[in-house]
């Protein structure tokens, strides 16, 4: 090993350390931004070092250098522009898009490398399969989140048969690559099968299961990048890929636990719709109590302690600024306000937290499930904004679709106000018993309009 190689290896090691240190700093909101900057600095150094390697080796030909340079420049511009202009409400689809291109790049590495050794063949096949599934799967997920692909579960005719055939085909291609030196044609065959597989995997999954799915796809990309590292025998790729794989796996498990549904059942899909707006306002027997915005505002103004429970309805209506404005107005009026956030509220892990942070809600006021639940019995008013299944007391009983799901115990508060467009069902497709609870009042409105009306009411009555 030459002195140059040694230095390069040591610098790569320092970069990997920066990734770990950066992730470690993400453990607290106060240091998280610095953590991301440390990680970015490590990435910058890794890229510059690789430029030095290319120049020093001198193996790259002029055409390849141009292809690399132009591709990188165009990609960087596209990424920067997308990252600068995206609205916070469009964050889930952008994160998913960046995940897709990462997986795509990893798959292309194995396709371009023409693996020769058995190690490179095995990891190359894995890289192509996982990377291609992630690429197409994340693009579909991104499309669903952006509303370009219908968010409801799309059942593909004979989907299971086709999936099975694709798995068999991909396995045959893998055997051809590894055992019979099938080379590029077999690898491309595996890639095509995996691309179709990724589409079939994500189409049947409904909107509210998205936090699980995009966490899982994130873990997939990490794994694909690590496999690309095995193909190229490049340690930084292996380390970074493994770190991301671990992060994605942890989030996937947290999200699946928060829904009390096994990952296998979520990936099988076809469950619920999440985005459905049922027009029928019938929960059958029990009556619901309606409340006007003015009455609700007075009730809030005279409360000692208010907890706001946001859900996907808040994100869909882009009502985060109104929610925080209301919280600030109540705080100014002497009311103690906090937010209770369920782990799977919204469409990606931590979705509500980002939206509320954008609207300047201090992060100390954002409490998770475990922190929030003990406080509900001494809460005067819970304001539920566009959240449904995560508040359904039926989850405490066995024998229904939400059984066993950890919920926010909003029904233990002294009173509850629910802002909702209709009595439509949530993702699980069942009635929410909270709405017929005698202590619950319904304010039928879109989240944005409802919150604005509350604010108006508050400023009129609560001086």
């Amino acid at each position, binding site marked *: 090993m030459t002195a140059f190689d040694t230095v390069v290896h040591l610098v790569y090691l320092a970069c990997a350390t920066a990734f770990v240190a950066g*992730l470690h700093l993400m*453990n*607290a*909101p106060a240091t998280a*931004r610095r953590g*991301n900057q440390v*990680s*970015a600095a490590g*990435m910058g150094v*890794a*890229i510059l070092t*690789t*430029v030095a390697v*290319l120049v020093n080796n001198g*193996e790259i*030909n002029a055409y*390849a250098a141009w292809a690399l*340079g132009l591709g*990188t420049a165009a990609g*960087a511009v*596209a*990424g*920067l522009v997308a990252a600068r202009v995206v609205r*916070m409400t469009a*964050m889930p689809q952008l*994160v998913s898009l*960046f995940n897709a291109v*990462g997986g795509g*790049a*990893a798959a292309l590495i194995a396709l*371009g490398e023409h693996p020769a050794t058995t*190690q490179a063949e095995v990891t190359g096949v894995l890289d192509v399969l996982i990377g291609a599934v992630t690429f197409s799967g994340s693009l579909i997920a991104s499309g669903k989140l952006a509303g370009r692909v219908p968010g409801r579960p799309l059942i593909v005719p004979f989907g299971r048969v086709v999936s099975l055939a694709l798995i068999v085909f991909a396995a045959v291609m893998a055997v051809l690559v590894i055992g019979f030196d099938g080379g590029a044609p077999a690898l491309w065959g595996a890639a095509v099968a995996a691309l179709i597989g990724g589409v079939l995997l994500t189409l049947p999954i409904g909107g509210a299961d998205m936090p699980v799915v*995009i966490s899982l796809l*994130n873990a997939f990309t*990490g794994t694909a990048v*690590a496999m690309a590292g095995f193909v190229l*025998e490049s340690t*930084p*790729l*292996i*380390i*970074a*890929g*493994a770190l*991301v794989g*671990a*992060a994605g796996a*942890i*989030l996937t498990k947290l999200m699946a636990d928060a829904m009390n549904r096994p990952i296998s059942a979520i990936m099988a899909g076809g469950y619920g719709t999440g985005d459905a707006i049922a027009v029928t306002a019938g929960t059958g027997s029990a009556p619901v109590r309606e409340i006007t915005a003015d009455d609700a505002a007075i009730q809030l103004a005279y409360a000692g302690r208010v907890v706001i429970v946001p859900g996907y309805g808040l994100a869909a209506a882009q009502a985060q600024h109104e929610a925080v404005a209301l919280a600030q107005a109540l705080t100014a009026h002497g009311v103690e306000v906090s937010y209770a*956030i369920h782990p799977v509220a919204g469409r*990606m892990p*931590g979705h509500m*937290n*980002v939206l509320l*942070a954008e609207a*300047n809600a201090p*992060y*100390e*006021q954002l409490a*998770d499930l475990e922190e929030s639940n003990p406080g509900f019995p001494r809460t005067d008013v819970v304001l539920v904004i566009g959240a449904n299944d995560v508040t359904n007391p039926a989850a405490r009983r066995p024998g229904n679709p939400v059984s066993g799901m950890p919920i926010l115990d909003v029904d233990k508060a002294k009173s509850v106000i629910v802002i909702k467009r209709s009595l439509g069902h949530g993702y699980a497709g069942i009635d929410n018993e909270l709405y017929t609870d005698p202590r619950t009042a319904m304010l039928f409105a879109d989240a944005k309009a409802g919150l604005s009306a509350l604010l108006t009411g508050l400023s009129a009555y609560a001086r």
Partner: protein
Amino acid sequence: MSPLLLADLTVFTLALLVGFEVISKVPATLHTPLMSGANAIHGVVLVGVMLLAATISTPAGYALLAVAAFFGAMNVAGGYVVTDRMLAMFRSRS
């Protein structure tokens, strides 16, 4: 198994364990930035694309290389910037 593969597997396994250890403590408030930041870290795939470039010498290869470089650079640049934008919004009570 070659010694090289064994060394790579060791690194991979230990990095996974480090990842689990470091990330399992991240609070729910930071789940989105964590995912987005992890997303940016797998942008290291661009380094892999650059290493691949040294071995490419066919027209089809150049096309594949350009696409891979586009994807990788978009991942790394966009990922870090969007995560920074998100984290800049997380403020303490002032």
